[in-house]
């Protein structure tokens, strides 16, 4: 139940994020929308990997190695998400750098003003 709820939320977040990215004219708002969408993706990934009734994939006193395989959630999706979060940060930072440089050139953050190359 929790997993389905989370997946649904994740997808909704993605849709909201993409909607914002396509509708907003201010570049900074676009980037914010992408951030929201990225968060949504991350939620979906972790939720897909969730298995009810199991615990976090950390081997310590509570979960000895011997019965780990039966008691922990698959760690792989979580590893994927960690990478994805960092990549998301990287692209966000790059897009922000672009936003700033674009502002420096044209003194505007309106994406409709940057349509000089066309055809």
């Amino acid at each position, binding site marked *: 139940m929790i997993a389905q709820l989370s997946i649904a939320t994740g997808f909704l977040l993605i849709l909201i994020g993409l909607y914002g990215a396509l509708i907003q004219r201010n570049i900074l708002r676009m980037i914010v929308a992408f951030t929201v969408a990225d968060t949504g993706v991350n939620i979906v990934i972790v939720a*897909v990997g969730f298995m009810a009734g199991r615990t976090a994939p950390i081997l310590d006193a509570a979960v000895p190695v011997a019965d780990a395989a039966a008691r922990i959630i698959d760690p792989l999706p979580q590893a*994927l998400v960690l990478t994805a979060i960092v990549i998301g940060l*990287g692209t966000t930072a790059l*897009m922000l750098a672009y936003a700033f*440089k674009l502002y420096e050139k044209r003194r505007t953050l309106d994406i409709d003003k940057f*349509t000089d190359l066309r055809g």
Partner: protein
Amino acid sequence: MTSPLYIIAVALAAAFLLGLLREQWRSLAYPVTLAALAFMSWLSASWLWALASGSASPVDIYTAGTAPPFAINLRMALPEAVLTLLINLTGLFSALYLKSALLARGRRGMAVLLVAIMALSGIVLTRDIFNLFVFLELVVIATGGLVLLSDHAHALSAGFKYLVVSQVISILLLIGIIFAYHATGTLNIDGMAEAVPGLQNAGASQAFELAFFLMFIALVAELKPFPANGWALDIYEAAHPAFSAIFSAGAGTAALYAVDKLLLIGGPAWLDMATGVGIVTFVAGNLLALPQSNDRRLLGYSSVAQIGLILAVLGQRDILGEDTYFIAGGLLLSHAVAKAGLFWLSGLLAGRQLVDWADLRERPMPVFAFVTFAAMLSGLPPFPGFYAKWELVHHLAGSGRLVLLALVLFGALIEAGYLFRWFGYILKREPPGEADFCRVIFDKPHRVLPVMVAVAAGWALAFVWGELASSLLGRSNLLLALPLLFALSFLLLDWLPAWVKNSLAIAGLVAFFAATWTDYDALRMIFAIIFTLGGALTLLASYHVHGRRVGFYPAAMLMFAGMVMLIRADTSFDFFAAWELLTVGSYFLILRGKHSEPHALSYILFSLGGAFLIMAGFAIAAQGAPQFALASLAHVAAPFAPWVFLLLAIGFMTKTAAIGLHIWLPGAHAEAETDVSPMVSGILLKAGLYGLMVLLLAMGKQQLYGIELTHVLLWVAALTALLGNLMAVFQEDAKRLLAYSSIGQMGYALFGLALMNHLGWLMALVFVINHYIYKAMLFLAVGGVAKRTGTREMYRMGGLIRLMPLSFIAVLVGIIAVSGVPPLSGFGGRWVFYNAILASDYRLPMVVLFLAGPIAFLYLFRLIYTIFLGQLKDELRRVKEAPFWIVLPQMIYVALLIAFAVVPGLALHRVDTYLNQFFPEGGLSWAGGEITSNYGYWNPVAIMIIVGVIFCTVFAWLLFVNRRAQPVKQFNIVFSAERPFRPETTHFAWNFFAPYRKALGFLTQPLVTIFWTTVTDLLHTAGDLGRRLYNGNGQTYAFHFLAFVVIVFFLVGL
């Protein structure tokens, strides 16, 4: 062998090292970058060498000490080695090219470049889908970073649009990956591929299909398919050219291989989607490239199109089988090397419009580089694209995928069109402004070197692909063909003076004939003599040119090499390769004329279109057989045979300029240089006739939907003869008149062939010989006159008989021969012809052809009368006879014509006997000096004597009567009270045939020209309409992408 992992490790290490360098060692940053890239290239190269020579086998590299699916693995096999070598070398030479930009931007730029190349190599090497995603994201970030560093407003907006759409792509890719993992339990590509068939549960396999769709569409989007590619085109246009080179050659390559890996997982069900997306992108990309005027944007569209084609090839894996990598690799390597080279070349020029490239003309090397790249992209021999396209077309035809075949050829024709149009600009337009191109070359050798390396790589690849084709597929390596090598050697010898090269060329042609003349049967012997010895004879006229004549000899010898290889070809492959070679050589030759830019373009378009039809015809005939001997045309299966016949016939007729396909000829032959016109009109047109002969001999009569195809040919031929001659009548320009005359004469020859009886063919062959001799002679004569008088318009000449007597004699003999008046050889041809018609049943075309005869006489008469007879103009009083070297071949031709008239059996007897094996009835019998047919007889010597006697009698009587004639001075003329305002209206030669024009002029409406112009206009309009999609807004592009995903989803029918 060093582990391939070092490709990635070294790049990363170098990038980090750059950041750690202390102040005093900062200047080492650039050499460190170059060293790292060089090491990576060396590593790929050593693996390629080892794998290709067999001393190493493909290896999987495990990381983290365990095997998949618990760890990531990389693979180094032959495709990976080739592709990483391509990526690393492009990176290395682009880094060299970017020297000043990188030094200005500092270590940040170099580090990002290293990461970009590393990530591209990683995409190629990895076997884990998430690892692929990570490397892909690295490429996106590195690309964004590199574009950001260029700091132009245009580049910045391009880069931002790229990032926006990349974000959307990566969201879809991630979702797809996680659900795929959920369904199959592994992230390893090979593991996933194995797990897919085992998905039992219907729900699980449905879920996997959806997940796979998302992954696949995301990776396909990385290939910039149409219409979801606006975001990438801006980068091609705005970024630094060295970077666009990496983007086109490197990123395209890596993305294609990623899609290929994914197809491995998905299986054959997804191939159709790849084909569909690919072919639409190919055609649309090329169509939209047509109206472009910005050079880099055009190259961007071309890149998108080529990558689309390769995607379509990957999607045809089911029928291509083992040849998939040969074809895809050939196309990919051609594209990558050529595009990188063209982008690098674009950086050497200041202007960004296509016409600004006229600056390149200053030096032969850049022009040669451009030609190499354009030839690679168009798939011309001997480059890899040629072999690849041949195999692709054959497989497609063999499996009946004819729509796809047609689309591929259509797109390829458009691409050749805009590339050759561009080349025309380079050679013919005015260079824009200050000529500072020379300075560029000497100041910036680090920019010129990558271009030269790309050219060398292109030729090396041509050789390698030829070797592969001959060892794997049984074709011949074109670069090893002696005639072609001889022609190419003239490129190296171009620094010599023209007369030396001319002598070498003549010697080469004669020697080739002498060495090989025993190989030919009687039919081919005629063509061999015309192509080699005839060519040598026309080359005599080229001695009149002084200087070095750079570019003439390679082009001319390429044409002759093609013609020679044509008659020696046994298989369809050799035939077609020769056909394209002679087309290309003649194009370059024709382009040299002063005003020939549009005509040369028209010529190459028609010729390539015809060539593609021929290739399609051969492919359908072969039906998937690996080798196809020309003789097997006779055994083509019934439903295909008429279509094959039709395709091949139309293809050959574009070369002989049959009506409807003729509009290129008048301009091309008229505007060509003085010594080129005889070559193309006298010799080159015969190649088309040769092709038709081979076709008709093998396939004979064919029926299509109940229509006898040779009957149609007869009509086409008759109309060609009539209309060609008619249009010649109304020309003011002497060379145009002769060009239209050639069209008409080719109609006659075609008619003879289409009669499909013994005498018809004999007549066609007589025509071949005669036409060569007198057309070459007439063109030389007219060319010589034009040289001395400075004009080609006949109404500006007149009365030249006293000043240019030798030219007059040549033209006189020529027109007697053409018109078929006895005693010269034209009469013999006519005699055979009338016999042939009597032997066949076709009345109506015959009538049309008969009409063409007297019409021909009209223009012939005009030719001699308006140029040589009549009154001499003031400005022409001082002209001398034409240059010696132009007159000499004419005199030789006169002698040949007379000799041929008296002893026609020299050439014809053997041919007559040879034809008996194909057309046993209706031959001639040769007894002494007399020739007998079923209907009558002909005695050339007797005719010569009789005509001579008549002539002498009339001449003597004329001299006697004229003793009392009173010579009138030139200006003893009276006007009847009217003053002429335009000088030409008083000259009798202007609008000579005005009454005929009133009567028959309606037949010469330029309907065909209007038709073809409308076709090209439609294509341009389509391109223009498509361009409007790209409105410059990044959000629109993201929206295009999402719409593309939805549409493809519904089309795939999940």
